[in-house]
């Protein structure tokens, strides 16, 4: 395969090659002349603004966006102000920096997203030059204004404008300048001609590149490498100084023998570069200058654009696109003419093997003798990754696979992975996709980002294929793509709601991790409320539907979904939203249809807004609850008059609720309160608020028997209760005479055993005995026992011939009552006989 090295150009120890990436699909009339061009690294899109300086309103400049392969994505006439600079952000958004300092952001498809300004003062002084740069913080923009001041922001998504200090003696724009990112600081390096300055946040320092002799003249062009580590300066005498960007160390100094300022100057390096070099472009010449003072010169016919990449330079002209890069070491080893590297031998061995030649064995032996077969396989695999041509990739991988057969414990992982990744890379390099990524770039960029970019470019099927092929878990892979697809789908204006909903549902199904509510939110954003509602129906978690429904002002639906979800917090969220959105009447009506929400709101009102609670019951004509509300309100009221009036309201409500019982009870309460107040006023009895029973008790305790009697009659207190109360109270006060009188007032409704027991409780056996005789026969034994009159008890029990009672007496007997025991036993025996 001698031809592989045909396009290799030696530069010092290393070689440089130009690989053709694409024949550009575009058809540009005047080439790239007179245009502002921005091409993003990592095979990003290309933006083109024709004749940006034409200002007549009749013919506006055209802004065109192409994929890296030149496929037109969109184009539109530029209607805003004059553009100074175009640039791409890390997330493939187009930045257009205007003369007045406004930066407009468009997406890949040319739709306007937002804009921001680089500062008010810029409107006056105008932007002279601008640069878009990338740093670990994101994408930044730096400008220099007509008043020779620099302003920059390091991250356009988190806009913080920094105005850099003044540069002494600078008039207009500097000769040349670059943005550096060092030590987590963003600085500007600029040349005013003879002087070189570094501008940081606070100061402007003059610097002198080491080893740059003053005779070399003033610096007219400079460039910094992809990683901000290396710097190249071009002087007006044609010298090219290269060194580290911290300006402490020099790498080389080369005389290019060209005194005109190059149009473009870009670093061309790769990780583990042997020969870091700078590519310079003049009108008809492309020159690669290495550290070894050597140069390679390519003649060019067309104006080109140079795009610095991580591992090379893309050269784009109006017809084709090439990748200029240093040949990776491993490829050199394999393909260099007469190379004896193990990889080269293995490739040769395999070639012979395919020709069925025994030389294959010889080659293999040679590798094996050096025990380098593992290394050989590794080399082939690695080299395959670096090759762009799929035939070369195949022959290298076949060789590796061939060599692998002769190894016993060789991990196939790297081989398998490289095969897979190459397959993916070849797919995205297709001209129709247009992502000319190298393997190194792909590794740096990661698969996730690649899928994101594909999704962003709306290559959904390809992205899904890749996810499936590389077996990425659904959650991060297919589902994520589907989600984006669905979000994009719902924005298609030409399809009916029904069709879209059906399509989305069919594709998405119930893939894990795809949230229908997110898709619905997108639909709503693009103004398709009905579609959003349709999509929300597919959402399994009802809780997820609520926020969007609220946003769409479908509050009723939101409320019922929230209730369905069983999440009370969610219900409450909706309720409080409704409360602020609706008028009171509608709000209550809505709640009325949702018992769960209603009771939740009631609970809240009980603690927070008592009055609302009343309104709520009123609205519902819930007289019962309203009355209950008044009752509890009456307890909070200290003043009696108010209290009575509140109770009156309760009575009215109870009547309306046809709860006569409660109405009556409440009326009684009012009567009682009045009665209590009267007595409190007259006697200072302190009765207010007591229950009927407690009032009687208190009255009796105070000796106000007449009033107690009155209450007893007025409130129709049952006799039993009254008797109990009076009995207890009299005994309590030990008014035994009064008690006796009371007992004789009429026949006791509670019997007389109670009298006996109460007397005994107050240890008055004498009084107790008085009542024993009055006790009914059935309870007489108990009564006698209560006053510990065993004899009497026995007497009655025997008389009544009641076995159980006799037993009860027996139990109470002690040994000293032997006589009695005998008698009882006899009687018992006699009773049982009969």
């Amino acid at each position: 395969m001698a031809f592989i090295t045909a396009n290799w150009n030696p530069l010092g120890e290393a070689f440089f090659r130009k690989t053709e990436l694409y024949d550009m699909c575009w058809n540009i009339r005047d080439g790239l002349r007179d245009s502002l061009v921005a091409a993003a690294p990592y095979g990003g899109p290309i933006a083109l603004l024709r004749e940006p300086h034409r200002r007549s309103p009749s013919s506006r400049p055209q802004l065109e966006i192409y994929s890296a392969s030149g496929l037109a994505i969109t184009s539109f006439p530029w209607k805003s102000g004059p553009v100074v600079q175009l640039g791409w952000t890390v997330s493939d958004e187009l930045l257009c920096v205007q003369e007045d300092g406004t930066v407009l952001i468009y997406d890949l498809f040319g739709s306007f997203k937002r804009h921001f300004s680089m500062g008010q003062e810029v409107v006056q002084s105008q932007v002279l030059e601008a640069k878009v740069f990338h740093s670990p913080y994101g994408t930044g923009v730096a400008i220099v204004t007509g008043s020779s001041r620099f302003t920059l922001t390091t991250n356009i998504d988190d806009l913080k404008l920094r105005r850099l200090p003044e540069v002494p003696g600078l008039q207009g724009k500097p000769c040349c300048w670059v943005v550096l990112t060092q030590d987590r600081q963003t600085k500007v390096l600029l040349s005013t001609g003879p002087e070189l300055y570094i501008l940081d946040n606070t100061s402007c320092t003059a610097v002198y590149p080491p080893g740059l002799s003053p005779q070399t003249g003033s610096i007219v062009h400079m460039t910094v490498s992809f990683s901000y580590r290396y710097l190249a300066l071009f002087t007006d005498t044609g010298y090219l100084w290269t060194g580290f960007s911290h300006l402490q160390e020099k790498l080389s100094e080369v005389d290019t023998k060209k005194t005109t300022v190059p149009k473009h100057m870009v670093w061309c390096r790769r990780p583990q570069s042997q020969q870091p070099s700078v590519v310079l472009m003049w009108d008809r010449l492309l020159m690669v200058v290495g550290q070894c003072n050597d140069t390679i010169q390519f003649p060019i016919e067309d104006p080109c654009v140079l795009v610095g990449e991580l591992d090379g330079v893309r050269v784009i002209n109006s017809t084709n696109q090439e990748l200029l890069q240093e040949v990776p070491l491993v490829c050199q080893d394999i393909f260099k003419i007469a190379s004896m590297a193990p990889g080269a031998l293995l490739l040769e061995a395999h070639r012979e093997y395919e020709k069925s030649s025994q030389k294959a064995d010889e080659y293999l032996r040679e590798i094996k003798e050096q025990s380098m077969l593992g290394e050989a396989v590794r080399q082939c695999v690695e080299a395959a990754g670096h090759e762009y041509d799929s035939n070369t990739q195949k022959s290298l991988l076949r060789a590796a696979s061939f060599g692998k057969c002769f190894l016993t414990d060789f991990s196939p992982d790297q081989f398998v992975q490289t095969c897979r990744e190459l397959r993916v890379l070849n797919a995205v390099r297709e001209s129709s996709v247009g992502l000319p990524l190298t393997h190194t770039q792909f590794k740096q960029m990661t698969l996730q980002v690649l899928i994101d970019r594909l999704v962003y470019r709306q290559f959904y099927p390809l992205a899904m294929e890749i996810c499936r092929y590389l077996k990425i878990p659904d959650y991060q892979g297919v589902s994520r793509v589907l989600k984006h697809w669905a979000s994009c789908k719902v924005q298609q204006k030409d399809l009916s709601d029904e069709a879209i909903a059906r399509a989305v549902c069919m594709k998405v199904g119930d893939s894990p991790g795809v949230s229908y509510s997110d898709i619905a939110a997108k639909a709503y954003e693009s103004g398709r409320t009905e579609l959003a509602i349709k999509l929300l129906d597919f959402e399994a978690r009802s809780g997820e539907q609520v926020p969007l429904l609220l946003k769409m002002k479908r509050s009723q639906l939101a409320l019922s979904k929230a209730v369905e979800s069983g999440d009370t917090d969610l219900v409450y969220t909706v309720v409080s939203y409704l409360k602020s959105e609706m008028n009171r009447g509608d709000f209550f009506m809505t709640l009325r249809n949702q018992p769960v929400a209603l009771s939740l709101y009631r609970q809240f009102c009980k603690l927070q807004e008592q009055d609302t609670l009343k309104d709520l019951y009123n609205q519902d004509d819930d007289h019962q609850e309203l009355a209950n509300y008044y009752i509890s309100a009456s307890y909070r009221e200290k003043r009696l008059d108010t209290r009575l009036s509140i109770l009156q309201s309760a009575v009215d409500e109870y009547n309306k609720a046809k709860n006569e019982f409660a109405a009556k009870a409440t009326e009684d309460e009012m009567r009682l309160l009045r009665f209590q107040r009267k007595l409190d006023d007259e006697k200072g009895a302190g009765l207010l608020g007591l229950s009927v029973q407690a009032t009687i008790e208190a009255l009796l305790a105070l000796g106000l028997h007449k009033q107690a009697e009155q209450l007893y009659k007025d409130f129709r207190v049952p006799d039993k209760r009254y008797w109990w109360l009076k009995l207890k109270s009299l005994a309590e006060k030990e008014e035994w005479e009064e008690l006796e009188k009371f007992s004789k007032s009429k026949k006791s409704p509670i019997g007389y055993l109670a009298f006996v027991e109460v007397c005994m409780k107050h240890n008055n056996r004498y009084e107790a005995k008085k009542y024993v005789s009055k006790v009914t026969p059935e309870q007489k034994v108990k009564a006698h026992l209560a006053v510990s009159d065993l004899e009497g008890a026995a007497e009655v029990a025997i008389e009544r011939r009641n076995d159980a009672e006799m037993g009860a007496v027996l139990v109470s007997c002690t040994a000293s009552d032997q006589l009695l025991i005998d008698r009882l036993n006899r009687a018992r025996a006699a009773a049982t006989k009969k």
Partner: protein
Amino acid sequence: MAHSARKDSPELPDFSMLKRLAKDQLIYLLEQLPGKKDLFIEADLMSPLDRIANVSTLRQHEVDKLYKVEYKPVISNSDQLCFLIRPRIQTVKWICDVVNADKAAGKARSYKIIFTSQKFYACDAVLEEQGIFGDVTTDEWPFYLLPLDEDIISLELPEFFRDNFLAGDQRWVRTASNALHLLHSLYGPFSKVYGIGRCSKMVYESWRQIKEGEQKTDKVDIGKVFLIDRDVDYVTPLCSQVVYEGLVDDIFRIKCGCVELGPDVTSSDKSIKVMLNSQDKVFNEIRNEHFSNVFGFLSQKARNLQTAYDKRRGMDIQQMKTFVSEELKGLKQEHRLLSLHIGASESIMKKKTKQDFQELLKTEHSLLEGFEIRECISFIEEHINRQISMIESLRLLCLLSITENGLLPKDYRSLKAQYLKSYGINHLLTFANLRQLGLLVEQQPGETLTAMESKVGKLVNDKTAGKLTDAFSSLAKKSNFRALSRKLNLVPKSDEEYDLRVPRDMAYIFSGAYVPLSCKLIEQVLERDGWTGLEEVTRLLNAHEFAGPGSNGADLAAKNDAQRTILVMFLGGCTYSEISALRFLGRERGFKFIVVTTAITNSSRLIEALLDNHV
């Protein structure tokens, strides 16, 4: 113990992990607020917190002073205040007052509110309304479950009952399902879940939602789960408890597994706090016993103890040494516990063997059997008139209403009127609450409701009919206790003598008069592995029964032991008697029951939750 357990009963899982987990989470939260801080703890979180992290642990994490939340102005010099509270609006409002008072006084402090077990949106709303949303930081302490004993886990949420069943506020459903989820992820996967009740169903569904997409562990400790709403069975918690543990709860009130015995019990001049759990050997043996056996057991135990002490007579020095070092401490401990329990039993005896209690029990039993209702009513009447106890009277009224399927209108009015005269008109609200829950209702003439329901049901579609049924059932919950009792044979025939020493069935926990409905349901469902054959019963209960798979991946056949470990979750509280009954059932059938409850309840707590006399 009087009865021996089946030998093949599975081992109980180790629940101390729950405590460790909660502790670590709390410490993490406390460390989020570095430096010295004062901690304010909600009163009803004090005891649970004590179980999780004691004062010295809190001190280690720079808690300076501890206060109880008392809704008073704060006197503290610390510049960091931390509040550990339940998500209650009242408490949040108090904190707002504290912060606003500080603001007015120009004091700058930092405030942190730790909500347990979760924060509600309403709390945020209050903070916002009071304008201090930006001044406080909030956090959630996901402390759901407190193991009270080796087979009892409590959510310590007494308000669950009132909020959920009375107010219809479903905010705690999530909490319950989160708790279930926690158990599932630690001890599951569950193979089968049964349940009955509206709330249970909601918990189950909410839990299924949470656990979607979860990885299951290979270790299975708990196989089956039974969820039950308290409103399925109100009869059981309304009955007087006569099993030792239940009695102790009724009389001394066990709080968070701990009881405070007063001076009259300890026969000294100070109160003693005693932990009641299986660690207490004496208690462990009598907790499930009918009270009539307890004394006999305790005296036997005392005799044994004496013999053990007596052993030291005739010992030589060596033996004495081992005795002192090994046995004496245990004996001393046992001695102390024994004397405490004897004291407690005596105190119970004093209160309960009186005439009144016997009559009370007799009335309860008549109510359960449905005999001599008129006598019962007059007993209750007298109970009210003599103002024996506000709560007890209500309890009897409710029991009467449930067992009789509502009171006759005449009785309903007169009993209510009497009650109001005894205890004041504010109980009108209490009665409204009881009516709403169906605990105390007027008898409906005929079955008008059902007829109306079916008529309406024909007119509208199924979904709305379901809603209507719900509405009706909440309007007046019908109790069909009598029919249920016949169907499930809840009241054993009373002509046979019931030997309480050798319990035949779960009825022993109510002196052989009644098998608790809740436990009977659990037994039946486990026996049938579902609700088939119980259609009539569920219709009578008017409940939402369900049976479903737990985890999709759980292997039904595997790990036989785990399948016989059953988690019973009571939503709205359960009583110690029910736990005793389940323990008995477990011993009989070779199951192990683990009871998870929103709180331990009893008749007084149940009724108190429904009182409306708070002003």
